[in-house]
């Protein structure tokens, strides 16, 4: 206890009273401080490898080589993964594109969308008689059988697979809508073929003429069929898986 007290008091006395030996110690401590600060600063600034030993440099080099190898392997793995993902995406896009095209053509067939394309405009005017439903239907069937992709009548009714025709007063009832003469049938498809299907001998043109009507065909480079139908889900039929 007394010795520790004396240690403390010696320290306090040294702080109060300088002596010759303290000057020597001070010089050496200044040297330590100078060198320490210099070393710390050098250590912080030194980003080059100039101060390293040969063995250290070799170790650094080995470490770098290992890191490079690992990184390269990682790069390879990641680019492989990227390749896989890309090809997967491409496949998905192709499938999506296919499905979209299918949807488009089904929409056209089902009459859900307005369509534009080359085709014919068939005008059936009643001059002396009344055009029968059967003859009118004949015209439609003829157009369909040569590949008309979309058909509308008088800009009012779009014809689809379920379309019905009946005789009405002063015209024909198509899907519940009364269509009055002159009937204008727009059909999109190969204009030449469609026109040919109307006017061949014994064809619909002749039948119409016999009933007292007048059928004219106009080939158009572009027809807009703007009438559409509501989508109707099937009530009873369900697709088999």
């Amino acid at each position, binding site marked *: 206890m007394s010795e520790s007290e004396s240690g403390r008091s010696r320290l306090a006395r040294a702080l109060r009273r300088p002596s010759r030996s303290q000057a020597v110690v001070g010089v*050496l401590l*200044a040297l*330590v401080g100078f060198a320490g*600060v*210099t070393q710390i600063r*050098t250590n912080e600034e030194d980003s080059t490898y100039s*101060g390293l030993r040969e063995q*250290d440099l070799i170790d650094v080099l080995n470490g770098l080589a290992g890191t490079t190898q690992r990184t390269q392997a990682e790069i390879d793995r990641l680019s492989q993964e990227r390749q896989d993902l890309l090809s997967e995406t491409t496949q998905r896009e192709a499938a999506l594109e296919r499905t979209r095209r299918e949807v488009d053509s089904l929409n056209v067939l089902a009459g859900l969308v307005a369509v534009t394309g080359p085709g014919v405009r068939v005008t059936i005017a009643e001059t002396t008689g009344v055009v029968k439903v059967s003859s009118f239907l004949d015209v439609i069937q003829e157009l369909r059988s040569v590949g008309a992709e979309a058909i509308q009548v008088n800009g009012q009714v779009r014809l689809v697979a379920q379309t019905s025709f009946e005789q009405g007063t002063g015209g024909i009832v198509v899907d519940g809508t009364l269509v009055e003469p002159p009937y204008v049938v727009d059909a999109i498809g190969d204009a030449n073929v469609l026109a040919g299907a109307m006017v061949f001998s014994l064809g619909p043109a002749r039948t119409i003429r016999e009933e007292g009507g007048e059928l004219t065909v106009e080939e158009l480079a572009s027809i807009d069929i703007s009438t559409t139908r509501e989508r109707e889900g099937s009530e009873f039929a369900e697709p088999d898986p």
Partner: protein
Amino acid sequence: MIAALGLLVGVALGLFFRPDVPLGVEPYLPIAVVAALDAVFGGLRAYLDGIFDDKVFVVSFVSNVVIAAGIVYLGDRLGVGGQLSTGVIVVLGIRIFSNVAAIRRHLFHA
């Protein structure tokens, strides 16, 4: 008092002049600093024990620095510089710890 001032002056000079360490000395400076620190703590302990002698302090300071740097230099010549400097640092570190423990017992009775 003068000793503490000396330390401050040294730090200030180092910060002020920002000297460049010569390339040949660069591996030995950290070892020398640690050796000098060991000598300083040894001296402080001796002072608290009442057996401090400035001649002994100067000799131990210089010899500590020279021997530490010399061992590492020899290690570098022999190709085991890295390992030897680690060994010297460990030994000096242990000595510094024991010296600081003695100083602590003097100052804080613990």
